[in-house]
């Protein structure tokens, strides 16, 4: 639950007063907030999306603000995974058009690779 709250806090950073209100509310309120966030993400995505085509992560390097959710989408005919070098995050196998999202709650440089084809590498810089 702590993780969920952190993620919510991170996602809604610009609307902090609203977040605080929600976090102070009952659990049901938090769940409602989460649903709202998901809907917002669906409409504004793409900017923080990393695509996989031809065994390549594009963009290879992505810089985002703390709290950003990054989404990886696999367009290849072959499954890939997204594994952070220190395994702070690891996706399951992504088949064609499957996606994986991860919210970066803290600053840093995150080198990642495909666990099946480790010559595929990329980096997310969180500031």
């Amino acid at each position: 639950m702590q993780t969920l709250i952190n993620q919510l806090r991170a996602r809604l950073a610009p609307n902090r007063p609203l977040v605080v209100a929600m976090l102070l509310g009952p659990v049901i309120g938090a769940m409602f907030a989460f649903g709202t966030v998901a809907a917002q993400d669906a409409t504004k995505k793409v900017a923080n999306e990393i695509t996989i085509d031809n065994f390549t992560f594009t963009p290879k390097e992505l810089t985002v603000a703390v709290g950003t959710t990054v989404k990886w989408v696999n367009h290849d005919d072959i499954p890939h995974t997204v594994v952070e070098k220190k395994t702070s995050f690891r996706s399951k196998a992504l088949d064609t058009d499957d996606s994986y999202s991860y919210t970066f709650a803290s600053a840093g440089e995150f080198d990642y690779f495909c666990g099946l084809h480790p010559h595929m590498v990329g980096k997310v810089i969180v500031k």
Partner: protein
Amino acid sequence: MAKKGFEDRGQGLGRREVLECMVWAGTGVLWTVSGGVPHSVGLIGDALAAEPTGFTFLQMSDSHIGFNKPANPDTLGTLREAVAKVKAMPIKPSFIIHTGDITHLSKPAEFDDADKVFGETGVQIHFVPGEHDIIDEERGKAYLERYGKGSKGAGWYSYDDHGIHFIGLVNVVDLKGGGLGNLGAEQLAWLEADLKDKSNSTPIVVFAHIPLQVIYKEWGWGTEDGMQALNLLKRFGSVTVLNGHIHQLAQKVEGNMTFHTALSTAFPQPAPGSAPSPGPMLVPADKLRTVLGLSTVTVVQGNKPLAIVDKTLAG
């Protein structure tokens, strides 16, 4: 498809047994072991006619059951065709070595479908996993539950047959970012111990999914610590290395070592560097079976050299 050019490499290896590999492009590779150094003997039928007393085994690879994209919408169908070739062989191979990527996504139904078709061969199959066989939620548990009996670690093992020492290695787990295939220290230590009591004249067949030698680093076609394994095998008079993963034939002889990669039964992949990526290669439907295959190996006691024959599903 027979690969010529490995003849006349006799180096006075005497009575050593050597492996003849008949790669049956499109479905599998039929191997024969005879006494010395690799050479090819022609297509499978010729080879069998020439060496009727040989001990044979078959290599199959990269069946990718569950894959259904345009490069081959029916991988189970082409596997069935490969198995039909095996069933039709005049002399049944003693066993089959499958060099991984049995399934595409490690799903139980994919393993079930593959096992059902493999079962029709009536021949024992020795598996090693490909990276596609260990992408279940528990990263390899599904594979080990089915095929890992008697194996060590992530599924490596060895066995002896007809005086040959067979070693199945796993180089698809715990891969490092930016790297290639990986055997790991634990497996290498096991290999060293496994070989310790073997005499230099014991013929060795070692098989793994990703090529042990680096074929094309840019596409990850090689094994990071593969040379460490090959160094342990250097002292043996006859070493045959069988791999899959790259969905095309590649053969090479270095000293007493012969390297061979098998065709897939599912779909072809491009030659190194010839395409933007190593993804499935789309070929016209009527050409698909010319690029899928099996390899057969016949082992003959005595002084005969090793040979490799490739045969496609279309052949």
